């Protein structure tokens, strides 16, 4: 990687069919040189559109892509200095592994010999030295994706675009690829724009995360911040948050069937939904004076070593609060418990707008999209 570029996406909008909601709506994002930014979103959120527009494979309806301050509007994909790795490896089946990696050099007119020598170096970088002579189709899924990565890196892109490149791999291989990419980042310092639906992958690879939902940017920041202070219900849900308690905020206190709970930071007065991550909730005895609320375990969900319990707190219709138990802890359904909701773990997001003008289905989680991204933070 000769020089990593600074990427800026400005107000990117893509309308596929006139009259339909845009696939991407006013998306702005900075990817500093040498950093890795993950665009995190569920399928259909427009995250692949972000990469296609950045790579020049598709043209935005509005907005622009800038690389090191240069506007790339109208620049064809091959002259953008970017290389993309897709979820499918897309190795050229008529070429050997080595010639796949040498492809970028060859189409730029580098002599075959030199291109092949450099290809060997990049194959070495992804720990596939000696695989050059094999036909591309003889590799396993993990090896294919390594070659795809080597091929993209051999193009010496100023920005490396990764479109869910490890999603099709099994857990162990994925972890291996994460280590490999982390290692490559240390050695080559590329600028990486990664798209994924998996918060764990974003956490493993990216410096910062941009959450996309319904074509709109919901929130950017460190994943840690997003976990503790999601800006919207969509972000909270995407990151695995399940507890959502509607109520009202007044003078920094959230009032709901759970009672009056002081919040850690300033939140404007008005209706708000309290979200608390299950890992932060501590389960104690029902009589524990430290408990913020008491309720009954109604469901236990096994999740590896740790179980997730749903505790129903009395209220209109019953208010479910989810809590993760300690490793090896067990609680049967029907057991009354007390719950500690640490102040720092309490976050309030704007309520879902159920009567969005765009005709969002009332009462569904997606309805919050119509109301725009919340900027309210505890």
């Amino acid at each position, binding site marked *: 990687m000769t020089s990593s570029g600074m990427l800026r996406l400005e107000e990117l909008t893509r309308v596929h069919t006139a009259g339909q909601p845009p696939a991407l709506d006013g998306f702005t994002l900075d990817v500093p040189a040498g950093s890795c930014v993950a665009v995190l979103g569920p399928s259909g959120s427009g995250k692949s559109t972000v990469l296609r527009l950045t790579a020049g*494979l598709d043209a935005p309806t509005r907005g622009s892509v800038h690389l090191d301050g240069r506007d790339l509007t109208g620049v064809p994909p091959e002259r*953008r200095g970017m290389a993309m790795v897709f979820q499918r490896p897309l190795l050229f089946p008529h070429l050997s592994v080595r010639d796949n990696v040498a492809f970028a050099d060859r189409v730029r007119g580098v002599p075959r010999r030199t291109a092949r020598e450099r290809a060997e170096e990049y194959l070495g970088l992804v720990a596939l030295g000696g695989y050059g002579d094999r036909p591309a189709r003889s590799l396993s899924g993990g090896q294919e994706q390594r070659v795809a990565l080597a091929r993209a890196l051999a193009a010496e892109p100023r920005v490396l675009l990764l479109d869910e490149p490890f999603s099709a791999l099994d857990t162990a291989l994925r972890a291996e690829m994460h280590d490999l990419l982390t290692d490559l980042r240390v050695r080559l310092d590329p600028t990486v724009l990664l798209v994924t639906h998996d918060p764990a992958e974003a956490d493993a690879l990216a410096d910062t995360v941009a959450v996309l939902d319904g074509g709109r940017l919901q929130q950017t920041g460190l994943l840690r911040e997003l976990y503790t202070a999601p800006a919207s219900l969509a972000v909270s849900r995407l990151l695995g948050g399940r507890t959502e308690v509607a109520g009202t905020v007044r003078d920094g206190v959230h009032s709901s069937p759970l009672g009056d709970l002081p919040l850690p930071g300033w939140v404007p007065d008005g209706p708000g939904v309290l979200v608390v991550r299950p890992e932060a909730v501590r389960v104690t005895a029902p009589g524990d004076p430290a408990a913020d609320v008491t309720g009954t375990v109604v469901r236990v969900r096994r999740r590896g070593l740790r179980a997730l319990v749903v505790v129903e707190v009395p209220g209109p219709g019953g208010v479910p609060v989810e809590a993760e138990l300690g490793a090896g802890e067990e609680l049967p359904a029907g057991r009354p418990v007390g719950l500690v909701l640490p102040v720092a773990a309490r976050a309030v997001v704007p309520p879902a707008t159920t009567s969005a003008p765009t005709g969002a289905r009332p009462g569904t989680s997606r309805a919050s999209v119509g109301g725009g991204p919340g900027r309210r933070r505890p």
Partner: protein
Amino acid sequence: MGLTARVARAALAAWLLLPLVPLVLWAAADRWTAPAVLPQAWGTAGLRDAVDAGAGPASLRSTVLGLVVAVLATPLGAMAGRALATYRVPVGGAVLAALLSPLVLPPFAVALGLDVLLLRLRVPEPVGVFLLLTVAALPYTTVLMRAAYAAHDTGFEEEARTLGATARQAVFHVQLPLLAPALAGAAFLAFLVGWSDYVVTLLVGGGQLVTLPLLVASAASTVGNEAQVAVLSLSSVLPPLVLLVAVGLVGQRGRA
């Protein structure tokens, strides 16, 4: 391979090859009269007669005709197939029906009608044959290439573009190599249309373009020279067979 599959393959091979056995026997028979199971006298009289009748130049003409038709109809079919598979062609069904119409209409009627037109336009006879046979080959190449493009993953070309290939390079370095087996198949079919045509060559060519099928037909219309007919027929069958094996090998390499 299971036993059933083996038997089926053997039966298929027999079905295709058995009709050639009498041909081969006749080609090498100087005398073979009714009750005898095998020829009474072996020899090369049939071969000599065939060469005397002009089998050499006729094969050459047939080869050129097949190649010209393949060279014209394959890229045209590829372009039409690509358009039909990738873009929203207005009334695509009607376009496809028009392209397929040479298969539906009786070739004799079409050739006769167009012969008059070509004569009035003063198109030289061989050029008329090339043109008409290219049109006759288009349905095969178009349908085959349409299926190939429909199954083709454009992701490969997009990947090539992000790696620095121009649109043209993406076509020549990625798209065409990936479609090589289909292109070879389409070219083979188009070659066959030119190689084996009788009606158009006879009517439009006006007897100027004596190809192998014309020679076979004229030899077969008289009696007493079965050996010569057999040699001519074999020389019409063998080149496509060799080509088929070659195309099959290309296809195999593409799938390997």
